[in-house]
């Protein structure tokens, strides 16, 4: 379907745009900037500020170009060619400034404020207004993150429209009327949206300010770089601002292919970790204690420990693509081991292998645009708002455009108002997905999901989150559901480095490009570049590595940007492993809880100090750029790996980032993928032997990595630990909402405040993975689900219980 085109002139210049285009957008195409405050290309027009007047030939009244659409042959005149328009804009600016406080010298927005810019460009030099200005109490904290200065507000409603139309978190609203109109929030409420910071960025004046940035800098005091958020696989494009060497702000950059114009609050406000005081930027080597040393010495020591020994590598999802590639290569070539893993969940299977191949192959992947344009979307095992927040916004956008969305998850997500949820008890996902494959389900959420996918065909999307990786088949069944209906499929990991690490082969079985180490043909393609691989037996995954370590079957364990004590879903196993490995090498920004264990520490450069790439969940590699040099003696991870190869008497074969990239390009470029018969056999309805299934995943804001120093963010959005249980299950156990319960698993027990809610599948209980005061991995045995029992605890008993975890307090 070709879209009807409309040709018109603006200031005498001809332009052709699709029918329905707003005049203001058409003008932009000609490079004509019409002044505006309330207009935002991603929000619905409001026509509120009245700054964007244009004249349309033959029309007596001026038009607001942000609300009026083009018409064939229309002759538009902007302020550039119409005196009337220019005068109207000056007059409107005079209106806007009547009550504006003009406290620019102390306003965070000063220097980058549209109102200031326009006043400067063509505002009246002097005010004719001699009366007293409107005053309000200020600033009003809307949350620990967002402060509101009502005097500066121009009532453009961008912030409230964002909350209504984009995030769906309608915490703030315009109240009252006339000159008393103001942005407000319900009494006693906090602006508890994980997207609240976007309102600050799109506020055209300094009315909404960020607490972490309040009075911190003037724009001319900043040096900036365009880079990518390191927090999750969404890959939001950010502008990172540094003042005197310190990161002081993240702002969203517009990229309609990725993050539109948005960031989540974690991406925006968790920026202090590179400057955290706990960061260590010199190499350390254990002598009596951990002693500062040089890279040369520490590398030599590691070489001595490792030669001919059993070595394993664990990493999180935080490595940049180049680092992951270097790690994959150094482990296999210099250390001759396939015991390396970046995962915490262990999907395995075809879906994962496909994902590894698909990273560089658009034909096999899903993009944000695909999501946006989809007609039907099944989101399985993913709480997008908490795990990949910008994908959550895209799903909401898709819903606004008419997509039918179905969420298969054990917990209702914040898509509740735009999607149909099928709550399934953990372990049941494969079975439910199987019904979609078979087109079963009838008049139920599952049946409707199957129908919707089938009707959508190529406009269908299946997104498989990490909850599916808990079940050996679930992701594969999801893939099959997609194949059956013609939908596009993607595995959606949460962390920024996950897809890149998968593609690079930081994986016990997969080499770069998803090639299997035990498949001679595929292996040969890698060997053509890397040289012969001496170890061709698939290695251990993360869990097996820790088990082997605990059994003293590993001599040297590399912990690269990962802390198994906190990150691995079995705290006890992680501790045993660390206790039983002779040499632990920690490569990270800081030591954290690994300090007592580390035998060597290799300081890594932080992301604002790096030139590298992160690959989004879609498979889009995006460049991150340095805004400053590596702190102290720290180095980019890939350089450290190159050093390790030398210490082992070899070489990675590249001395520069460019060389590395050139080498990896060949191995990571698209290649044919034979779908391979999946090991899929009918998953069948699950039988549960456990009373309840406990499941957990990390919430967006928690005690996890890279949130160090983000105190305002945590004050605003970090929740205390809680346990969610379905009313039916609660009733059986006489558990009352708001009380406390004791949850027991094979691994441990804890006393936690309880929330009784129908927004969780019957038979399941949820605890967040890593809220302050409860490390859920003390309840786990290597997986993110566990059989559990839950019982009510009387208040007095809870208070007296010595085993009770301090909730909300520090460690």
């Amino acid at each position, binding site marked *: 379907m070709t879209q009807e085109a409309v040709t018109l002139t603006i200031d005498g210049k001809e332009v052709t745009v699709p029918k329905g285009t707003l005049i203001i957008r058409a003008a932009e195409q000609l490079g004509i900037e019409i002044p505006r405050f309330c207009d935002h290309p991603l929000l619905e*027009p*409001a*026509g*509120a*500020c*009245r*700054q964007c*007047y244009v004249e349309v030939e033959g029309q*007596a*009244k*001026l038009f607001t170009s942000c*609300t009026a659409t083009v018409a064939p042959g229309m002759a538009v005149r902007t302020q550039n060619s119409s005196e009337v328009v220019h005068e*109207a804009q000056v*007059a*409107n600016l*005079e*209106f*806007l400034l*009547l*009550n504006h406080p003009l406290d620019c010298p102390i306003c965070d927005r000063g220097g980058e404020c549209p109102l200031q810019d326009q006043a400067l460009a063509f505002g009246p030099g002097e005010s*004719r*207004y001699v*009366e007293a200005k*409107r005053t309000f109490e200020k600033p009003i904290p809307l949350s620990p993150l967002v402060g509101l200065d009502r005097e500066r507000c*121009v*009532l453009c*409603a961008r912030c409230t429209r964002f909350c209504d139309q984009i995030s769906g978190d309608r915490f703030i*609203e*315009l109240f*009252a*009327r*006339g*000159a*008393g*109109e103001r942005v407000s929030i319900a009494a006693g409420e906090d602006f508890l949206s994980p997207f609240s910071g976007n309102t600050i960025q799109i506020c055209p004046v300094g009315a909404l300010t960020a607490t972490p940035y309040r009075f911190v800098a003037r724009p001319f005091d900043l040096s900036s770089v365009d880079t990518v958020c390191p927090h999750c696989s969404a890959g939001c494009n950010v502008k990172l601002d540094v003042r005197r060497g310190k990161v002081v702000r993240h702002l969203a950059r517009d990229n309609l292919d990725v993050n539109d114009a948005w960031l989540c609050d974690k991406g925006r406000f968790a920026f202090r970790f590179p400057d955290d005081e706990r960061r260590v930027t010199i190499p350390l080597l254990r002598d009596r204690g951990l002693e500062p040393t040089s890279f040369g010495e520490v590398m030599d020591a590691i070489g001595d420990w490792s030669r001919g020994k059993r070595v394993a590598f664990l990493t999180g999802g935080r490595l940049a693509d180049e680092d992951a590639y270097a790690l994959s290569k150094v482990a296999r070539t210099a250390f001759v081991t396939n015991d390396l893993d970046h995962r915490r969940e262990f999907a395995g299977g075809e879906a994962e292998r496909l994902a590894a191949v698909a990273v560089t192959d658009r034909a096999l992947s899903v993009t944000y645009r695909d999501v946006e344009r989809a007609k039907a979307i099944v989101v399985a095992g993913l709480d997008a708002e908490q795990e990949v927040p910008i994908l959550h916004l895209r799903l909401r956008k898709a819903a606004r455009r008419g997509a039918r969305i179905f969420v298969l998850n054990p917990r209702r997500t914040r898509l509740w108002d735009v999607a149909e949820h099928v709550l399934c008890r953990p372990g049941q996902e494969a079975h439910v997905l199987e019904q979609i494959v078979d087109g079963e389900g009838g008049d139920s959420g599952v049946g409707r999901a199957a129908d919707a996918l089938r009707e959508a065909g190529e406009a269908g999307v299946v997104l498989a989150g990490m909850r599916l990786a808990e079940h050996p088949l679930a992701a594969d069944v999801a893939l099959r559901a997609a194949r059956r209906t013609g939908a596009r499929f993607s595995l959606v990991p949460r962390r920024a480095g996950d897809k890149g690490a998968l593609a690079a082969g930081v994986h016990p079985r997969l080499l770069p490009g998803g090639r299997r180490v035990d498949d001679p043909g595929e292996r040969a393609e890698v060997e053509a570049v890397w040289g012969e691989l001496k170890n061709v037996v698939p290695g251990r995954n993360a869990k097996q590595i820790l088990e082997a370590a605990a059994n003293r079957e590993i001599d040297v364990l590399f912990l690269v940007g990962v802390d198994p004590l906190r990150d691995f879903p079995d705290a006890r196993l992680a501790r045993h492993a660390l206790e039983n490995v002779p040499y632990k090498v920690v490569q990270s920004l800081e030591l954290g809880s690994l300090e007592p264990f580390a035998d060597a520490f290799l300081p890594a450069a932080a992301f604002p100090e790096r030139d590298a790439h992160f690959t989004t969940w879609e498979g889009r590699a995006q460049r991150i750029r340095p805004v400053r040099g590596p702190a102290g003696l720290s180095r980019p991870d890939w350089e450290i790996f190159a050093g390790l190869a030398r210490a082992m008497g070899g070489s990675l074969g590249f001395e520069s980032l460019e060389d590395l990239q050139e080498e990896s390009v060949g191995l990571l470029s698209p290649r044919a993928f034979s779908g391979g018969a999946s090991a899929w056999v009918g998953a069948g309805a699950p039988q549960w032997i456990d009373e309840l299934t406990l499941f957990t995943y990390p919430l967006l804001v928690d005690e996890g990595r890279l949130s160090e120093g983000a105190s305002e963010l945590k004050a605003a959005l970090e929740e205390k630990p809680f346990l969610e249980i379905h009313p039916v299950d609660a009733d059986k156990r006489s558990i009352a909402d708001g009380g406390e319960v004791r949850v027991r698993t094979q691994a441990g027990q804890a006393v936690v405040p309880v929330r009784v809610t129908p927004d969780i599948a019957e038979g399941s209980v949820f605890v967040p993975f890593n809220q302050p005061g409860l490390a859920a991995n003390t309840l786990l045995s290597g997986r993110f689900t566990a059989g559990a029992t839950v019982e009510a605890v009387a208040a007095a008993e809870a208070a007296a219980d010595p085993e009770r975890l301090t909730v909300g307090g520090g460690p």
Partner: protein
Amino acid sequence: MDPRRAGGRGVTTDRIITRNWGNPDVFHVDGYVANGGYAGLKKALAMAPEDVIELVKGSGLRGRGGAGFPTGVKWSFVPQDTGKPTYVVCNFDESEPGTFNNRELVDREPHQLLEGLAIAAYAVRCHNAYIYVRGEFLHQGTIVRRAVEEAYDRGFLGKGICGSDFDLDVVPHRGAGAYICGEETGLLNSLEGFRGQPRQRPPFPAVEGLYASPTVINNVETLCNVPHILENGADWFRGFGTAKSPGTKVFSVSGKVERPGNYEVPMGTPFRVLLEEHAGGVLGGKALKAWTPGGSSTPMLTAEHLDVGLDFESLQAAGSLLGTGAAIVLDETDCVVEAARRLLAFYAHESCGKCTPCREGTWWAVRVLSRIEEGLGRPEDLPIMNDLGRNILFRAFCPLADGAVSPITSTLTYFREEYEAHVREGRCPFTGSGPGRRIEEVAS
């Protein structure tokens, strides 16, 4: 035969919709029916909906809520193939200063409105209609509710009304007290439970109104005319008023007159007749100074305009508007600066706050006018008032702001000298309030 005397229900005057105001029985459904009420509805139900629309189109009836849009044409804009429900909303928010005809129409004969509403609903195939009652109209809200109950009891509303197969539910809805909720899109927002702020048009309510469905919005007086048109025909209706403004208009006359009140006169009747014959002339025999023909949002006229006909075209030609048909009369002892200040205070209070020129402009205007009235005006203030008018008019999001400009520009046009006197003398020439220039000069 004189068409004016040929109507049903014993019409013997020039009045159509206030003709029964002397008869208290028509307040209840029984009296209304005994007086011939609901005959228009029955007639309509026997016709095809399209024919009802055609008939109303043919009558030339124009909206009485202010804009004067032809009612039948409005109904014909309602698309019938959207798969969505169609709504009719009666606008009973009547908040325009000086306007109180809707209120009395409901006070005296509420079923006339319900009958018109039912006919409108039938014409556009609507099964759910609303009556949006101004928040302050506590009593009228009760009247409407009771009348609706009576109509349900008697089968004029509800399932299969009047034995036809047409169903209609009517829900009275009380507003919360905001002038802007009389503006049709503000009204729709309010009815949906949102803030009373106007919506972007297009889409127009006829296409996307209440709950994004096709919606007809009509004023109380407009709807009250409809049963009579059904009963007596389009030609009969055109026998009243002028060619382009057929029918009558109920004028609310207030201010400095002997007999304030509502008077129904044929469109085109000169203001002099309304003022002198109906309202008893200016209070105490004083001289007329200024008057609004259609409420405070229409530019004021003066004694020069006594013979202007009260209809859409004549008033427009005279530089004003018919508006809601509400004459506020000022006599020679009234200060127009004070009048303008009070009216602007109304608009500043009622501005919904959404758009800049209205929100800030009315705020500014009140302050400048107050200063002038208090004798603190400066010569620079007159150009500011001039600019204010120019910079608000047709620049705002909705017509509320244009209404606010009317008192500014019309008083500046006709009574500039009075403004200048305030500034020159440093006090209000009528009340004497203000420091006065001489005092200031002595002091300095």
